[in-house]
């Protein structure tokens, strides 16, 4: 809901995502702050933020597939992996960054289409199972391929990225790369629901039989949803490869896919704000548990580092269940409600 006194004199003005000048100023300030962060912060924070951006890109992709088109995808981590391995292979061959990232995105997209093809025959849960197959098959295939192709069990080194003669391999460089691409991912996921294909995704999400009756090519749209979602995953994978400098199969597990889904559900499936809030929330919880875990470790009790990971699993699981049971629209909805209450104050929000 809008505050009082805001009106539009043209249709284009009303269709904007950022409706008011104040919203644009706030966004500009946020962007400037994020751009300026490398000047003031240490390496640790930059690394954490880069990780957050990578996760955000992957979850934005999941928002397109799962949130907008309603097709369950439990292989996002495998698609990130395809992107990472493509980036590693190409960077090893000396391909520059600006070509590696689109190539990684495309590679992930093509692989996802392969597993989305059963959409022609099955739907809903059964389609989710083919993505499960993709996730389980991914490490088996990589490990079985000859060592010289994708590194097999050992993994592959990644050459540090260079753009226009500037080395981006530093923490600050990677941070900026992640920031720019995450901004792009957020921008596209805000605008996709307003486009023709985005509306088709939404129609298929709501009722695919009805969408078919209205003339939407349902199968093609479903495959497109997987393709677009995997494009994001490929980009995330490419940056992750640069960040890790060494890719191995063990980084891309089913469990990671489930975590991505969890972040999306906690944040909210139906709003582009969802991925952002979900990723930030889960990262904060994880970091909080990490520091709590470190404090416990230093105090000398017998708990291992595994317990911290287990505790964050428990917390995330509980958060997803709480979101599903009490607030299926996630943190994004809570955010809108809070903003509305704030704007209407002192009048009650009905």
């Amino acid at each position, binding site marked *: 809901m809008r505050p009082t006194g805001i009106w539009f004199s043209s249709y284009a003005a009303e269709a904007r995502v950022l409706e008011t000048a104040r919203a644009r100023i706030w966004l500009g300030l946020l962007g400037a702050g994020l751009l300026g962060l490398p000047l003031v912060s240490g390496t640790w924070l930059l690394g954490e933020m880069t990780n957050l951006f990578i996760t955000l890109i992957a979850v934005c992709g999941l928002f397109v597939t799962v949130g907008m088109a309603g097709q369950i995808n439990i292989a996002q981590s495998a698609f990130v992996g395809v992107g990472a391995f493509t980036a590693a292979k190409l960077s090893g061959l000396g391909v520059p960054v600006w070509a590696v990232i689109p190539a990684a995105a495309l590679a992930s997209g093509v692989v996802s289409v392969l597993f989305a093809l059963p959409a022609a025959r099955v739907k809903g849960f059964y389609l989710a*199972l083919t993505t499960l197959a993709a996730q389980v098959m991914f490490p088996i295939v990589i490990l079985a391929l000859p060592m010289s192709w994708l590194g097999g069990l050992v993994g592959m080194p990644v050459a540090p990225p260079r753009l226009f003669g500037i080395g981006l391999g530093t923490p600050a460089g990677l941070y900026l790369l992640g920031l720019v691409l995450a901004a792009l991912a957020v921008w596209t996921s805000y605008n996709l629901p307003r486009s023709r294909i985005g509306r088709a995704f939404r129609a298929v999400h709501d009722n695919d039989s009805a969408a078919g009756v209205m003339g939407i090519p349902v199968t093609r749209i479903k495959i497109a949803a997987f393709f677009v979602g995997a494009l994001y995953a490929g980009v995330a994978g490419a940056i992750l490869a640069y960040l890790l400098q060494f890719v191995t199969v063990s980084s891309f597990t089913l*469990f990671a896919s489930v975590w991505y889904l969890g972040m999306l559900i906690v944040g909210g499936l139906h709003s582009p704000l969802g991925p952002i809030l979900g990723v930030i929330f889960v990262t904060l919880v994880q970091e909080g548990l990490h520091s709590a875990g470190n404090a416990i470790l230093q105090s000398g009790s017998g708990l291992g580092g595994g317990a911290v990971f287990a*505790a964050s699993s428990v917390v995330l699981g509980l958060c997803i269940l709480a979101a599903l049971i009490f607030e299926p629209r996630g943190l994004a909805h809570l955010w809108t409600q809070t903003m509305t209450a704030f704007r209407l104050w002192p009048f009650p929000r009905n």
Partner: protein
Amino acid sequence: MIEFVQILIEGALVGLVYGLVAISFVVIYRASKIINLAQGEVVVVGAFLLWTFTEGMAGIGYPLPLWLALLLTLAGCVAFGWTIERTVFRPLIGQSAFTIFMAGVALLILLRGLAQLVWGAQSRSAPAILPEGALDLGPFLVNTRLLIGAVFTILLTQALHLFFTRSRLGLRLAAVAEDHTTAHSLGVSVRQAIAVAWIMGTVVATAAAVVLLSGSILSLEVAVIGFKALPVALLGGMESIRGAPLAGLIIGIFEALASAYLDPLTNGAASGLLPYVVMIAVLLIRPYGLFGWRKIERL
């Protein structure tokens, strides 16, 4: 030739274990229309419960007799299944299939974390409940543990089949699997159905854990069995109890053949990929599986 038959026997016996886990999928689905992605975690929890009441109690100086340990495990499974119904699925009755699937995803994360917090990540030896050894049948060797498991699977299948098709409660559960809202409006208690489904599902999963792990290693990684059994359940048909062991036989035999003859050629990938390739093929050709219910879509 002897080697070939030996491979067939071993594949069939392992396949029936997959079938047993698949039955625990099917039981839950058949009674509540929930496809539980976390079934592998349920197997792990069942196995850890059993471990606690046998080795764990012996470890702290209170060894229990085997029958009491098994009884306590059974009680633990019932309590566990009932808790899940009460806390997770009861509030979600009437929600979309998507939400219920996501609840399964959440359970997967939650149960894995809980198992690690409660029992720790280290692997340990599982209690040996079934006798380990080999039975000589002419030139062939049959693993006794798996043989007992196979007989158990077949008996259990028949019993559950009779339960679901002959008993009043079983038929009511089938109505819930058809449609929650319709079942509810006809006076069938959906809550009760889901509770029964989960209790049976955990008990069967724990039985599978006994057969699978008896005398071998118990760790969190055992949960992978859930994802191996999912293609089996799908091939048999999610609604068919008797389809599950049959599909298990098919997958087990083909997996054994692939691992004997194709793995040397493909660097060990063929047997790992096979169940999932079968799964995708089933989805493309017969999405409802060999014996599942064919659903009609209405607008």
